[in-house]
């Protein structure tokens, strides 16, 4: 089966049940009072349900069959007992209602807490993690896996306790009745413990297999959904359907093997109950024949013994829920235990009050995979207020430099400093708030346009409107059905690529970064809009350090300093005029860009070699 090259959960190894339970309990502790309440209610319900037959018994023995009483007294007594009976029935009903709601509340609150913790944790993980873990898997953890655990809190935790208490009580009762028979029955306790442990191990493996297949399925689905137009345009429907059906069949097979496992183990308790009955009948009957036991005792023993197996059956049924939940819990806790490779320093340096914006890359060496470096011993300085442009062949490592500056990744050697402060000594939030960046791929959140621009910058609607008019964006906002309040992102209004880039610009204009980084920020924007944007930038960020990455050479014309990169190295740097004068890579690019010819000019032949 295809695994899309992701490491399928090898990192964490498997957690022991003990540890998982420990952590679940730790989460439950916040709700111990409510949990104790639920357990009490549950004991009350059990007690109430067991009292009802006794009341009935009392009604029959005390009044219905009591021939020595007067008929009127018998009738009155019967009515009184019935009243009590009715009252208890209503009470049990009410208690069950309260307990159901209470348990749901506890379960949901705990799940909410775990979900929040997991979400917070995932957001803290490094980008390397995200590039190796498919979205579908993380989403499954956050939603389905947590949902799966929830069952455990509502139906299992309390039942577990309740049933164990009941089983223990009955066992004691049985011992009081007849030690020898009870001893015979006790044989089944270790046997069922053994069976259950074996079952647990197998069931867990089964659920694990099911869940990982589900993740594959969800991943495939999510990719297919987001890329459906491409699949259709490339006539991939048939093939995708087959691939999906293969995955789906894999899932079916795993669930079927789970059914087989459960089909084998679930009837075992029932079988043991019958076996015990047979043994007691045979052994107890023998004892009676030898007059060492009375018939009454045997009958009473058998009926209580059935009660003993009832909680056991209940427990083994809940066991499937437990195992499924444990498989999910295991995955969730493993994810929570995955440490981020990039974290805040233990004692971060204070963020300087005013940032001049001096940027220095010092002998940086980096590769996404350490064996294949992408950046080779690169050094680079941006003086405060300098506008630097970065050009270079595609894949030469320009975006990678931005990734390193934002500490999305950590360089294998070398340091990056802002105003002389090593960025790895700064708090991540401080660092990232100093650098305003427009990323190469514009990402849209599912929200209104206004919220997408403001995000967490705290700007008011007025501010945004003035930014929009300065950037010439109001023309496009006016066309939207609800203006600034139009919902965009998945399920909302679709923007054109250029409009998305304009949006990304508005985002950065809402902020006040010391250093501005634009990574291909205007690639999809027409020149006229670009001119307007440049002016707006000039207005807002005059005198700030800026790094502009662009392929369209007209975009970088205003730069004080131009850096040309190839294959992770700086091949040339200087002002436009200097570079034009010395010739070489940059001059060739410019010549090629301006030539009106048909590509046979000398510049291109020089760029691509003879």
């Amino acid at each position, binding site marked *: 089966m295809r695994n899309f*090259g992701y490491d399928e959960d090898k990192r964490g190894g498997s957690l022991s049940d003990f540890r998982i339970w420990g952590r679940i309990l730790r989460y439950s502790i916040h709700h111990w009072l409510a949990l104790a309440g639920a357990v009490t209610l549950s004991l009350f319900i059990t007690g109430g349900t067991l009292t009802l037959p006794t009341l*009935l018994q009392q009604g*029959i023995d005390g009044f*219905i*069959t009591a021939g020595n009483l007067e008929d009127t007294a*018998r009738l009155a007594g019967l009515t009184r007992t019935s009243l009590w009976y*009715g009252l208890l*029935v209503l009470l049990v009903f009410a208690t069950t209602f309260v307990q*159901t*709601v209470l348990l*749901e509340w506890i379960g*949901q609150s705990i799940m*909410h807490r775990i979900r929040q913790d997991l*979400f917070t944790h995932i957001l803290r993980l490094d*980008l390397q993690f*995200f590039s*190796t873990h498919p979205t579908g898997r993380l989403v*499954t953890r*956050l*939603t389905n896996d947590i949902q799966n655990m929830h069952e455990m809190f509502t139906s299992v935790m309390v039942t577990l306790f309740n049933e164990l208490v009941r089983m223990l009580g009955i066992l004691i009762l049985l011992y009081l009745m007849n030690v020898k028979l009870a001893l015979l029955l006790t044989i089944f306790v270790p046997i069922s413990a053994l069976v259950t442990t074996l079952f647990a191990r197998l069931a867990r493996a089964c659920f694990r297999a099911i869940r990982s297949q589900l993740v594959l399925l969800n991943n495939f689905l999510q*990719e*297919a*959904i987001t890329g*459906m*137009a491409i699949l*259709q345009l*490339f006539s991939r*429907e048939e093939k995708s*359907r087959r691939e999906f059906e293969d995955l*789906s069949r894999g899932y*079916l097979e795993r669930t079927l093997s789970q059914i087989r496992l459960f089909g084998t183990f679930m009837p075992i308790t029932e*079988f043991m109950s019958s*076996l015990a009955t*047979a043994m007691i009948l045979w052994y107890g009957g023998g004892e009676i024949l030898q007059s060492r036991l009375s018939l009454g005792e045997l*009958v009473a023993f058998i009926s209580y013994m059935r009660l003993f197996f009832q909680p056991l059956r209940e427990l083994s049924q809940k066991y499937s829920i437990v195992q499924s939940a444990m498989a999910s819990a295991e995955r969730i806790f493993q994810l929570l235990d995955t440490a981020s490779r990039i974290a805040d320093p233990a004692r971060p340096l204070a963020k300087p009050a005013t940032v001049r914006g001096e940027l220095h890359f010092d002998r940086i060496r980096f590769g996404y995979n350490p*064996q*294949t470096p992408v950046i080779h011993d690169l050094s680079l300085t941006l003086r405060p207020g300098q506008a630097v442009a970065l*050009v270079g*062949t*595609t*894949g030469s490592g320009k975006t990678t430099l931005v990734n390193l500056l*934002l500490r999305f990744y950590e360089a294998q050697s070398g340091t990056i400093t802002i105003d002389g402060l090593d960025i790895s000594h700064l708090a991540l*939030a401080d660092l*990232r708030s100093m650098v305003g960046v427009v990323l190469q791929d514009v*990402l849209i*959140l*599912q929200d*209104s346009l206004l*919220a997408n621009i*403001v995000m967490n910058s*705290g*700007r*008011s609607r007025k501010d945004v409107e003035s930014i929009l008019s300065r950037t010439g964006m109001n023309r496009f906002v006016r066309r939207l059905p609800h203006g600034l309040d139009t919902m965009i992102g998945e399920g909302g209004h679709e923007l*054109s690529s250029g409009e998305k880039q304009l949006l990304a610009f508005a985002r950065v204009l*809402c902020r006040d970064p010391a250093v501005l980084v634009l990574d291909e920020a205007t690639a999809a924007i027409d*020149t006229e809009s*670009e001119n307007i944007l440049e002016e707006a930038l000039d207005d807002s960020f005059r005198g700030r350090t800026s790094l502009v990455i662009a392929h369209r050479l007209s975009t970088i*014309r205003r730069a004080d300093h131009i850096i040309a990169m190839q294959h992770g190295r700086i091949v040339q740097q200087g002002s436009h005029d200097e570079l034009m004068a010395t010739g070489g890579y940059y001059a060739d*690019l410019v010549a090629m860009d301006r030539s009106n010819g048909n590509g046979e000019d000398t510049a291109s032949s020089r760029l*691509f070699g003879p």
Partner: protein
Amino acid sequence: MPPRALFVLPLSVHTPPSDASADTSPKRASLPELIDLLRPSFGRYRWQLVGGFVALIIVDFLQLVIPRVLKHGVDGLADSSISHASLLGLAALIVAIAIAVAGLRFVWRYLIIGFSRLLEQNLRNRIFSHLLRMDAPFFEKHTPGDLMAHSSNDLAAVQMACGMGMVAAADALVMSLATIAFMLHIHVQLTLLALLPMPFLAWFTRSLSGRLHHRFNTVQEQFSLLTEFSRSTVVSIRLIKAYTMELFQTDRFDRLGRRYVRSNLGVAYIQGLITPIATLAGNLGMLIILLVGGRLVIAGTLTMGDFVAFISYLAMLVWPMMAIGWVANIVQRGLTSLNRIHHLLGCRATLPDIADNGEPPLDHPSFSLRGLHFAYAPGLSPALVDIDLKIGPGIHGITGRTGSGKSTICRLLARLYPVADGQLFFGGRDVNALPLSYVRNHIAYVGQEPVLFSDTIAANIALGRPEATEQEIIAAAASAAIDEEIRELPDGYASLIGERGVKLSGGQRQRLALARALLCDRPVLVIDDGLSAVDVATEHEVFAGLRQRFAGKTVLIVSNRIKMLSLTDRIIVLDEGRIACTGGHEELLAASSLYRSMYEKQMRPQAEEAL
């Protein structure tokens, strides 16, 4: 400095767009409609089901036999008419029955629960095939998170109802019918009295289940929102980190989560009533028997033995009653989910669905747009207005301001959105009369934002032609000027590129998408600004290659780079959805102010001196 106060804006956490919200709360379909959805599976596996239920009923029956055997032994012991040997025989009989019960339990579980899994798989595959037939407007309305929730949560609910739900229902039905028959045998009036609370139970459950349906719906919707929010956050992780929005997002997630908790509690309120109400009804029956039956005994019209037997039968009814409460719940949940699935499967693509008749492809296809008018949705301002255009062999460039409708034209040609009749013609015929795949098979398409799949590079290039040889793949990559870079990767063409190609640079992703289109070797090539993240030199190289390769064919290139446009045969300038101008480079320099200003900024060396 702008104020740094966080969260001052009352942000709308997910008010879904108005048109979508109408959609997420599907109308309740009639029961036969829903059952129609399940019919194929039920029909196909009917014998499996019959076998399962027979096993289930035999198990029920055998379970009633064991107490009889026991009674036989006890009776024998009571009058000392039994020997050691026959005691052993009885014990052996019990064990034998127990073995049969265990075996049959395995059988029904495998057959019936297995059936529910088969049904689930069948529905899942159906949903997927359905999605494969949906068009862009559909996917704009339904978020991936929502669709994924359908295939996980909703299917699970349906599976549960058709598996354990059905088993419990059958079990409860058999048990209660048998018990009621025994009770009727003893005393008819008393039975009717004991069953008095039942209609009340039925009415109560029915009236609550309507509300339950509604609340389940809310829960599923909230779950979809939660799924979509997680998904879009994970996808946008770079943005969130770069803008230090972690806290901000966590806060929004928290609000969504709280809403989810609340709506689950809303369900629990009703569930907390429905589940114990069955027990309540059973117990009330018991109360009536105690009160009325007791009087009958005292009055001497009912024997004590019958009374006790009656009570023990009624006690046997309590479990099936409880099961009914549970089943009602599960079935309600299943129906709610089935309804959502029904609604999904009922969505129709807006594009005409004409079966492919195997017509041979055209060698020199051409498009003509006649007075084409297009809006993405009714009520939205039109994206294209009155477009008259002929796109035949040759290289056509399209340019224009952001949002002027360039991509929209490309999408319409590729038949991703519907067009009105008589406005778009392919090879002289109205596209609405042609199968979608017929038109699409002529077009190699490079979108503005490359869509790649988490697979190997080779598999991504070969997307449209899985049978392509290695040489062909390499040749396509070379034409897209990416062959060398691929070879430099540690695993070459077998390298995995991660989801959406995250392990590649922006320009590499674009060229990969281009290579994918080139491999298809179709007569029309549409490049929607597909080289914007590529440096001038590489762009030039690619373009030179294209010109050779596509000589005599149709190429449509959207671009904002004058250099690129000047090399095309004809340039179309769009402005606010209209054609502002068409013509060659020189013509446009004279005729179009938009084009001229582009030229001035990008081409004139003096421009920078002027600044």
